[in-house]
């Protein structure tokens, strides 16, 4: 056997011993664990590999724990300060005529002659059509049976488009955050159970 081959065989033996160790640890087989540790007493390379393996497990646990901690805190916040999440919940609701009119009033875009119509529409729960063009707004006005100025409907359409755009961006952000949370929850498992774990350090 050449020196290179000897070296390769030693590496292979240590890698095999380490796999035996990690597998034994996962199933709580302390006889095997003890045997590998006994071999490691005489083999600094194997001992170092065992320590590095545990350092890796600790790192994974810390990463998973950090994710779990964030979820825990968010859960507590939801429980104790639900109003902090009210905006998030409302954002997923569809945009209504009432939402647009309320915004027009806040922005002082309702002319004096249209104020009565605005008050009437302020509480309307009628959901806006998906496409907000002049034709759709005309149809909506007919359906609602209210008479307002062209200026009012133009402002209504512009505000509806603006609110819809802002809502889409928020929804995208929330969807991304939800996706992240779901991934963290899915990854929050025991790191030494090989068949169920996610790779956290990709």
């Amino acid at each position, binding site marked *: 056997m050449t020196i290179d081959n000897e070296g*390769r065989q030693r*590496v*292979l033996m240590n*890698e*095999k011993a*380490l*796999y*035996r160790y*990690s*597998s*034994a*640890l*996962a*199933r*709580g087989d*302390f*006889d095997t*664990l*003890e045997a590998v*540790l*006994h071999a*490691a*007493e*005489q083999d*600094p390379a*194997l*001992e170092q*590999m*065992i*320590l*590095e*393996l*545990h*350092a*890796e*497990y*600790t790192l*994974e646990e810390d990463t998973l724990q950090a994710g779990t901690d964030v979820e825990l805190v968010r859960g507590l916040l939801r429980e104790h300060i639900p109003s902090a999440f009210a905006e998030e919940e409302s954002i997923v609701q569809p945009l209504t005529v009432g939402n647009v009119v309320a915004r027009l009033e806040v922005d002082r875009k309702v002319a004096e002659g249209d104020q009565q119509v605005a008050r009437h529409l302020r509480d309307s729960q009628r959901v806006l059509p998906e496409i907000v063009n002049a034709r759709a707004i005309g149809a909506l006005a007919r359906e609602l049976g209210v008479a307002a100025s062209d200026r009012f409907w133009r402002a209504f359409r512009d505000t509806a488009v603006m609110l819809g755009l802002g809502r889409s961006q928020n929804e995208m952000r929330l969807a991304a955050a939800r996706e992240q949370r779901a991934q963290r929850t899915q990854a929050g498992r*025991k790191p*030494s159970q*090989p*068949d169920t*774990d996610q*790779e956290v*350090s990709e």
Partner: protein
Amino acid sequence: MRQEPPEHNQPTSQNSESVTGQALLFQFLEDEKEASALLGILRSYVRNADLATGDAVEVVAYEVLSDVMVEALPRLDRFDPTRSPRAWLLGFAANIIKRRKANVAHPKREVSIREVGDQADREVSDDDIFDRLAAIEETDLSADIASSEAAASLLMLVAEQDRHILRLAVVHGLDGAALGQVLGVRPATARVRLHRALERLRKACSTTMEGSK
């Protein structure tokens, strides 16, 4: 100036080793980094032995460390002071945990369904699966792994992600350090990934063998 100790106080060879070993052990445990790493490993042992869960893991890990001290100190003469005491101390810990597990377990009990399942799952041992991959490496080192029928049929048992890492491991002689370099991660990270892929392959092999009976 350093004073030489009186001649009658010169320790015997064995005592000298014990004193050196003791000093080394104290020095080791006083090192915050070493002590923290050791406790981290003990926590992992306690959890995997199902001796405790949640906050109790920390408490039991401390108890085990205390037991390790009690058992290791009288045996310091067996400790090689030229070596790090890590594996030596962990050996005591593994033994202590094994005994604790035995005390917790019911002495005479029926074999549970889960244990029957576990036995079936271990048709192929850790060594078997490792040797099978190592054998591919020995006979087929320079060839394309996929071209080897035996290798291909073995690797087909697992998903593509596992197949990829196992193939790389075989090409690099199952060396975690080399695998880490190829994957661009720490050797330990590469080994953890390899072990998980190996474990899934071992289970798949066991299931296949069990099914063909």
